Every structure is written in C-alpha cells, then in structure tokens.
C-alpha cells in the first residue's frame, strides 16, 4: 500500500511538471538557458513601457497550469519570497490561502506607501503585463474567482493599467476580470489588513490580527495579497522555470529584486539588482561617499558607511544588524547632512501617518517624534535621550500593525549610527553643512476620515 501511494504521488508530480500547453518550450530544470543572468528581467529592457505586443514578443502568452496548486511546486523550487518587504516564502502563502475553506480573493499590491520607494509604481509603468500575468497565475494557483489590483491613486497610472487590461481582454489573455482599486496616499495604505479593508469598500486602516488576511480578508474571504513585483516574478518563473530564476541571487535568497536607489549626489532611480549585490556597488559608495546608508525604507534601518561597505543587499547580511532588504530601498545620506535632522523628519512623518487607532501609537509616536525633534534642533539633554529609549520600548509590539515597531527600529538605528552626532547636538553643535532636506517626505497629514479611503 505504501509503495502504491508513493507511485501515485510520483505519477501526480510527473503530470504536474508535464502540464504545459502545446507549443510552449519547457526547459529542463538542470540546465540554465543562456542569458538567464541578464538583468533587468522585470523592467522593460528597452526602457519604454512594454505594451502588450512587445510583452508577447518578448515573453509569449502566459501559460495557465490547468488547475489550482499546479504552479506552487515551481515557486517553491524557485525559492521566491515576497517582494513587498517581509520576504515571506511565496509558496507558503499560496498554499495557506489555497488550504482555506472559502473561495479566495487575490489582490496584487502596488500601493507602496513608503515615500522612499518607487519600485512598484515603476514596475507597473514599465511591465504591467508581467504583473497582470502573475495576478492571473496566482488566482489560478489558489483557485480564486475574484482578482483585484491595488495601486496608487494617480490618474495616469490608473489609465495606463486600464488600457493594459483592455488590451488583454481583447487578446483573450485573462480568465478573471481584474478590478482596479486605488489606495489613499498614506504610509499604511499598503499594509495587508488595510488593503483588505479598502478593497472590501472600507477605509484603508489596519486592523488587529488574527484573523490574518489569508484566512479572513476582503469581505471575509481568504485573501492572497502579493506585492506586484512578486507577481511579476511569478509570471517569469511560470515561463522560464525555477533554475532560470535561481541563476542570479544567492543560494538562500535567489533571484533579482527591484531597488530604489538614492545616491549621495542626489541622483538615483529604480534599478533591478541580483540579491547579494554589494551595497557599496549599488550606491557607488567609492565615488559618492556617504555619511550613512538607509536600507529598507522608513521602517528600515541606518547603517554606518563601514557596515554598508562590507554588506550585500540580502537578508542574510542585513538581518543580524536588525536591518532587512525589505522592499529594496537604499539611500546614501550625503556627508554634508545631519542624520539626526533627517531621522527626526522621518519619525515625525511616521508619527503623523499613524492611524491613531492604538494607544501606544497614538500617544507614544508623537512624543517620541517631538523629543527627537528637540534632539535634532540641539535643544535636548541626555535625559531626553533616555526618555526616547524608554518610550520606544513602551510602544514596541503593542500596535495592531507593525507601525510602532518599524518606527522604533528606524529610530534606534539612527541613535546607534549617529551616536557622535547625538553627543555633538547635546553640546549645542551640529556637523551638517547643508540644511537641505534629503529623504523624501510627502506633504500633508491625514485630518479627515476621507483621507484614509
């Protein structure tokens, strides 16, 4: 009986791998095609947005697998992780949603609230069809019948996606019609539970978990939320296979990822990089020296130039320091700026972006922000620094979402990396020579309920 069960399991696996539409080229997993290490993979190589004709010329039609869960095995072999910031294994999320009782909803998350990140928007402009392919494939993999794309409320971007969807409908590519839902311009609007609430017609406010979104999300249905970059990777892996995907990146963290780069000279943009690329290479630190490097965005962490100089863009390198590759934000703070002033601006922005739902966030973050501002303005004493540390411990892990935790992580790394500057400020001095703000902070904080929906 045991051997019979094994045989049938093997047989099923074989048919799994064999289920490919006629005419499609199947690559054996052991050999890597030539050109597999060429980047960019996700962004259009021409630099112009890839329209449907170009997308089909470069990648061909998307290959449905013919049933739920069929794609999950390839995703597991590929080792794809979520590109929204948490780097959660995608196949586990797909399996968790497919295992739920109800009919799942799939939402592509393109509403990066992180002001320092542009990669999702850039991807949606550059390769909308890869994302939309991935959306259909994810929906097939979990057996969903409802699919949404959640994106910034920018009329031009929405029109761009609408016309992409219209083109796909005419070509008969999509099995499920994709509903576009726009997000308010809030830092937390892309948080999973906020997204589920917004797609369900409510305000984009985070809620307490559990229940997690994968079991109780949009309108109470099990919901798969995947970052648009993860979906685009899904579209590529489904075509070119796990071995191709693993041709770049590290063994533990394979593949490429989109990064938003800010060089110390003020230039920058979105670039695709293999995971494991040295940070100094991405930020050209030898040419543009930096006072410090911010990785992972405003819920991320500061690194000293020495740390940044010896680390690569990978969680294996960054996690031991309390940082993470996150959604691929890398910013080199120019040497003539003050890290405390920049950090105080960011923490103030983060405090204002609190949904104001949980006491520790509502009462704690404004105090921390005000105190840090005192420090940045050279009006504080060492006792204030102790206060900030104490309050930080009080808000940690006490919010419905990770907003207080992320804010505290950022703040602590600032106090650690800019220790000398803290001492200088407490003595009433500052080493910065330029008052010009460096990190991008959007104007306007929420004041009305409508600002969240």
């Amino acid at each position, binding site marked *: 009986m045991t051997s019979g069960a094994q045989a049938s399991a093997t047989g099923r696996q074989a048919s799994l791998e064999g289920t490919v539409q006629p005419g499609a080229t199947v690559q054996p997993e052991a050999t890597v095609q030539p050109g597999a290490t060429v980047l960019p993979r996700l962004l259009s190589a021409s630099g112009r947005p890839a329209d449907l004709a170009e997308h089909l010329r470069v990648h061909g039609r998307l290959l449905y697998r013919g049933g739920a869960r069929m794609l999950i095995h390839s995703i597991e072999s590929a080792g794809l992780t979520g590109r929204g910031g948490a780097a959660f294994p995608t196949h586990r999320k797909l399996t968790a949603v497919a295992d739920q009782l109800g009919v799942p909803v799939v939402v592509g998350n393109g509403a990066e609230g992180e002001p320092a990140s542009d990669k999702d928007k850039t991807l949606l402009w550059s390769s909308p069809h890869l994302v939309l392919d991935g959306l259909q494939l994810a929906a097939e993999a979990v057996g969903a019948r409802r699919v949404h794309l959640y994106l910034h409320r920018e009329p031009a971007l929405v029109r761009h996606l609408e016309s992409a969807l219209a083109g796909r409908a005419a070509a008969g590519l999509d099995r499920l019609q994709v509903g576009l839902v726009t997000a308010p311009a809030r830092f937390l609007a892309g948080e999973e539970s906020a997204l589920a609430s917004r797609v369900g017609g409510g305000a984009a406010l985070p809620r307490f978990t559990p229940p997690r979104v994968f079991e109780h999300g949009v309108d109470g249905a099990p919901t798969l939320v995947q970052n648009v970059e993860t979906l685009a990777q899904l579209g590529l892996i489904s075509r070119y296979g796990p071995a191709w995907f693993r041709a770049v990146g590290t063994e533990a963290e394979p593949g490429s990822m989109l990064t938003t780069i800010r060089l110390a000279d003020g230039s920058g943009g979105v670039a695709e990089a293999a995971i494991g690329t040295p940070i100094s290479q991405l930020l050209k630190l030898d040419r543009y020296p930096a006072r410090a490097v911010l990785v992972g965005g405003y819920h991320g962490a500061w690194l000293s130039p020495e740390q940044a100089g010896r680390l690569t863009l990978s969680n294996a390198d960054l996690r031991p320091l309390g940082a993470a590759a996150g959604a691929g934000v890398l910013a080199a703070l120019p040497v003539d700026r003050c890290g405390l002033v920049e950090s105080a601006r960011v923490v103030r922005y983060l405090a204002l972006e609190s949904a*104001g739902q949980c006491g520790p966030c509502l009462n704690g973050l404004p105090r921390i922000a005000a*105190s840090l501002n005192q420090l940045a303005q050279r009006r504080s004493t060492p006792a204030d620094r102790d206060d900030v540390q104490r309050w930080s411990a009080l808000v940690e892990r006490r919010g419905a979402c990770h907003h207080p935790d992320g804010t505290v992580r950022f703040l602590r790394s600032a106090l650690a990396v800019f220790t000398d500057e803290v001492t200088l400020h407490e003595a009433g001095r500052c080493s910065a020579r330029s008052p010009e703000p460096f990190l991008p902070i959007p104007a306007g904080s929420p004041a009305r309920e409508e600002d969240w929906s």
Partner: protein
Amino acid sequence: MTTGTVFWYASRATGVVSLVLFSVVAILGIMVNRQGRLPGLPRFAVTGLHRSLSLLTLAFLGTHIVTAIADGYAHIPWLSTIVPFTSGYERFWIGLGTVAIDLMAAVIVTSLLRTRLSPALWRAVHWLAYVCYPVVVVHSLGANKDLRSGWLLALTMATVFSVLTAIGYRILAAAATVPRPARVPRQLVRADRTGSLR
C-alpha cells in the same frame, strides 16, 4: 414585625437600593466611552466598577424578587419573574418590573458572552439598558407608593436627574470628539508645545 411583614419590608428596601445602584451602574456605563472618562479614575477602573456594581445590583435585585414572591400578602406567581403582566397583584406595575428583568437578562448574558459575540451585536443589545432604566423607574414609582412622596421621592428624582445629566454630558462629549485622523496631529502639537515633555 411578623414573618409576613419581614418579606414585605425586605422587598421594598432591596427594591429601592436596586434602583439607586442601577442608576450608579448606568452613570458609570454612560461616562466611560472612547475618549471621555471620570476625573481621577482610569478607564479600566470605571469599567471594572461598572461591572462589579452591576453584580451587586443583581444581588439586591434577586433578593427584591424572591422576597416579593415569598411575601404572602401580594400573591405574585413565580411565572411573573419571566413573563410580564401575569401577576394578579398590581398587574401592570409588576409587569413592568418583569420587562426590566428580561431586558437586564439580555444585557447581562450578552456581556458575559462578549468575547464570543461581534462587538456590534453586543453594543446593540447593551443599548437596551437605556430602555431598561426608564422602565425600572416607572415600575418603582408605580409599584411602590412610598416613592411618590417625602425623601424617597427626592432620592428617586436625584437618581433620575443624575442619569439624565450623564447622558447630556456624553452627548456633548461626543459632539466635541476629535475625528480619528486628526488625533495624532493634535497629540504631536501638544508634544511639541511641552518641549522636552517632562
């Protein structure tokens, strides 16, 4: 005092005490909401007091009901503890008391099951307390003629006035509520104003 009059007086007395306690429970319930709280008391203390006092009220109320039925003079059937308007004695006024018991039972049972119910359902049932309170007051005034004069009337009026004042305060407080998105900016302004915050 004979055996019969003990029950009679016990029932009257516990009834009056229940009314006063219920008023206090109602006031505590009205005063504690998302933003308002009683001066000098943290919110969890107010809800804790609200809960404990309602239990105490229940003890007095139980005695009030049992002694009223046990009292040989009035002849109130046991059925009247649950089904309204089944008492031969003072059918209407006693019936109102039964209505109040039923409403209270709904409020208490849903509160005990609160963690297992949706907040919206719990809230909707808890609002029945606002119906229950006037029913209790009318039952008290109707069934007990002692309450219609003298210092017992004054006591009743004082409790009713206190509850109405609390409701008025709550409505005014709700009107002054800061919308949720504006709360953090307000806190930040406050924090900035106090400087180093110590």
